[in-house]
């Protein structure tokens, strides 16, 4: 029986992927949970002891954690604002009859394909360096004092770098969505006497609501774990000013070697991400039906 045969075969073919991803999900996560319940420091091996929720209590009340949580929220929120706030008008602009549109599109998309370490270093050194960077030169030409980004406004600097990297993503998604807006719908609205502004408010904006939501959700999931840019530019500093949760966990694990605490922190990050993921999966699921 063709169809019965294909079903058995199908299940066999699917198993490696499912198995691997399952192990990838469960094993490390289980270990993280286990470690988070221990007092375990790599500097003091052999002295592991069960401390229950002590690590969580410590982590969640540690001022470092609160600072990193705030930084994370500020980082994610600001990047979302910047990428979507700029992404919408840029997408609208690229939807217009522009000569050489494809080339412009390529220029706008490029930052997303640059590896994070390169982006961060280019911005930090070539652009934002308070003495020899391009921004400094622009500032002095205008008679202003150049901003020492990574001393005076480090988090803002990181925000700009990350936003620059993710702007193409938001723009591309929104542009794709704009171009899928049914031409006939727009024409029908025109026949019905709607002005360009009305068409924008009543057709375009609602149509963009869904893609914007998707952009927010997906960006949030990836922005929660911004790491490379911080690692390469500020190392979390000065002090804790650019430490987000991801970096805090990293520094606890691989700088302070406090496995227990880092694991607890890692789980906190997982929980936050899961909340966002829940909504994203729902939207994707609804689309799968269609």
């Amino acid at each position, binding site marked *: 029986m*063709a169809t019965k045969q294909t079903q058995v075969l199908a299940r066999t073919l699917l198993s490696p992927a499912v198995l691997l991803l399952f192990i990838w999900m469960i094993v490390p996560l289980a270990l993280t949970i286990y470690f988070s319940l221990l007092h375990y420091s790599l500097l003091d091996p052999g002295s592991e002891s069960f401390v229950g929720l002590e690590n969580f209590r410590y982590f969640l009340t540690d001022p470092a954690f609160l600072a990193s949580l705030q930084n994370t929220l500020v980082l994610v929120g600001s990047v979302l604002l910047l990428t979507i706030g700029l992404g919408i008008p840029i997408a609208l602009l690229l939807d217009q009859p522009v000569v050489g549109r494809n080339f412009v599109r390529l220029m706008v998309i490029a930052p997303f394909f640059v590896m994070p370490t390169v982006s961060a270093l280019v911005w930090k050194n070539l652009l934002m360096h308070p003495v020899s960077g391009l921004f400094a030169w622009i500032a002095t030409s205008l008679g202003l004092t150049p901003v020492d980004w990574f001393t005076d406004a480090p988090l803002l600097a990181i925000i700009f770098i990350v936003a620059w990297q993710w702007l193409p993503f938001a723009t591309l998604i929104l542009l*794709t969505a704009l171009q899928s807006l049914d031409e006939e719908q727009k024409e029908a609205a025109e026949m019905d006497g709607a002005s360009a502004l009305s068409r924008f408010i009543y057709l375009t904006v609602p149509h963009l609501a869904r893609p914007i939501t998707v952009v927010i959700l*997906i960006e949030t999931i990836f922005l929660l774990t911004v790491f490379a840019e911080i690692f390469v530019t500020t190392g979390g500093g000065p002090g804790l000013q650019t430490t987000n949760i*991801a970096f805090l966990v990293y520094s606890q694990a691989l700088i302070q070697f406090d*496995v227990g605490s880092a694991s607890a922190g890692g789980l906190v990050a997982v929980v936050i991400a*899961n909340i966002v993921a829940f909504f994203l999966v729902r939207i994707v699921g609804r*689309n799968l039906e269609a």
Partner: protein
Amino acid sequence: MARKVTTANVVVSTAGAWLVGFLIFFPILWMVLTSFKTELEAFATPPSFLFFHWTTENYATVQERSDYLHHALNSIIIAGGSTLIALLIAVPAAWSMAFSPTKRTKDVLLWMLSTKMMPPVGVLVPIYLIYKNVGLLDTRAGLIFILCLGNLPIVIWMLFTYFKEIPKDILEAARMDGATIGRELIYVLTPMAIPGLASTLLLNLILAWNEAFWTLNLSTLEAAPLTTFIASYSSPEGLFWARLSAASTLAIAPILIIGWFSQKQLVRGLTFGAVK
């Protein structure tokens, strides 16, 4: 948009769009320009835009220090290896979900996608410890394994969507024509799926090449790909801007080129189909 496309509209749009594009692309452009300057010129204020002494000495230096080629090779092996292995696992999985779906298929697919949404930092500790104990730290194999698992959901997802676009009745026609499942796969499905396979390969190659969490944490020198190598320029001793620019240009050039061809795949792959 409206059929009344005025010249004014075109001119304004074009000017605006090119300005925006230029501004966004500028950091990359600036980096490429810097790569052709001498170190002195790179630091100089005021900075020169086009009229400086163009030199390729930085590229020569970068090439001479075999470091660079070593890391580039690592990037190629790690990105290529992880993507290919992911494809090997994903093709049968996507095939079975696309052509033999069950009631659970949708749930399985969504679950797979959700594994991609897990923050890597959540499992940094156990992975690092396991790798340390098993001796996989700073090995290419270790990185290939992690990156493969990290991208597997996206590879499966993209292949699934491409397979779904293959009309079912063409495969049924093959069955009526006497093809067994194996021959159906070889003679009909694969040729029709090649564009989709290529797109998936390209996009995931890019994602693996640019991956900057596991590569930074699990490699130091031996297996370090370009991401880690460039990161080493962040130490104060590594402040060779022109050389950094040259190394960076080389590091990102292949990806930019591939990326330009992969825009549509980007939307498909990274929005998980939530945006058409």
